[in-house]
């Protein structure tokens, strides 16, 4: 019994068909392969980090069918026929873009290890609650651990992103009213 990642030559393998960041994928996987390993080792999408591998730190947060989930607590075979989005797939998403700019501006990361998970969790929050107060932000991010920042700047960055998205919405509203 070793702690090596699931072996591609192992006996019981399944054909996994899934969509990751909009791209259809087909791979042979062992049932015990975690989604975090599938993303990082099979697909080389290393933006999904693994901090604890038992659900506590939130570094590995991805979207499964649009809802945040721990990649370290999901088996790859469980995303059969589902859509997975990792931090690499946020691309042009406007909420993610606002968050990236705000994290930069507010200095919301130092080593950056936790950042992909925070971006996923914060994006989920702002897509459901566009104008959260500080308490709401803190509760929504309570499942993500950051060992560097002390959280103050992360909370500020999320608030800043919410404000800039609101300003953009107002401007758009203004334009369409003027038309």
């Amino acid at each position, binding site marked *: *019994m070793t*702690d*090596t*990642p*699931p072996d591609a030559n*192992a006996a*019981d393998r*399944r054909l996994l068909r899934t969509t990751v960041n909009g791209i259809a994928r087909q791979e042979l996987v*062992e*049932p*015990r392969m*975690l989604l975090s*390993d599938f993303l990082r080792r099979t697909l080389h999408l290393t933006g999904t980090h693994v901090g604890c*591998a*038992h*659900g506590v730190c*939130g570094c590995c*947060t991805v979207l*499964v069918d649009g*809802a*945040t*989930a*721990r990649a*370290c*607590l*999901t*088996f790859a*075979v*469980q995303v*059969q026929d589902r859509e997975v989005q990792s931090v690499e797939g946020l691309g042009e998403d406007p909420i993610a873009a606002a968050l990236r700019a705000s994290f930069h501006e507010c200095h919301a990361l130092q080593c950056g290890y936790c950042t992909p998970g925070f971006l*996923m*969790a914060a994006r*989920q*929050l702002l897509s459901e609650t566009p104008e959260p107060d500080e308490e709401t932000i*803190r*509760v*929504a991010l*309570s*499942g*993500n651990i950051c060992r560097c920042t002390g959280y103050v700047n992360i909370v500020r960055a999320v608030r800043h992103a919410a404000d800039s998205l609101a300003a953009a919405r107002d401007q758009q509203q203004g334009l369409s009213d003027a038309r």
Partner: protein
Amino acid sequence: MRPASFRHHPARSVDEALTLLASEDEDARILAGGQSLVPLMNLRMAQPSALIDINGCDDLGRIDEAGGWIEFGARVRQREGELSTAVRARLPMVAAALELNGHPATRHRGTICGTLAHADPSAELPAVAVALGAEMVLRRQGACRIVPAEAFFLGALETCIEPGEMLAAVRFPVQPARAGWGLAETGLRRHDLALAGIAVAMLPAGVTRICAFGITPEPLRLPTLEAAADDLPRSGGTPATQARIAEALAADLEGADLVDTLHASARYRQQVTATLAARALADARQRASQETAT
């Protein structure tokens, strides 16, 4: 930090899951949300021979309301329960407990039945189920039995589910208008497992049911405190009230197997439970009187 090998059986329906359970050995487990089982597997503290994965069982994914009960199938996610308007309106304490049950990302996958079947001493929902008088629907191939929540929890991570059986659903009696409730807990980080907590259900007929969690291996009813609750002064947190609550709690905890860990001693757990009880009772009273006013 990777799980040992296991046989993975994706089930498409409850009947298929029960057939698979019957055909597998005793070390087979149900895989629901995986939010407690997979950490244990990653740490190799659990090495099930097979997992019967119920995530594809659409027939277990329903929240049904009928005959004064709201029933949650085994695949209903914690987040689905917490956001359901029926649950928020008629089982507000269940919605509140689900909100405290981990973080959004764990609640998107973790199930309502999973937290009951796992029976972590620090979990909120088992205590809420006992306080509200919920019933467990246990099924095996060709048989079904109903077990009241109070008889279901046997100890830390221990329930009366037998090999070959699964928790197919849980049902809660819809709370009458004018029912009050209070749920208070404390822990190391918000929305994580509690060090101590208490659930109070106050029915209009003057019946109060109180259940503590996090302080004993299984959720613990507090009959002395329940009996005292009715004639506690309405004013709430005075030192006299606080002393009476602590006294009743001490009577209920006499001889109990209190949890004593590095994070919180047994003495601390008992003291903080008295404070939490005062808070939860005050909340329950206030909600009961608000309900009367409307």
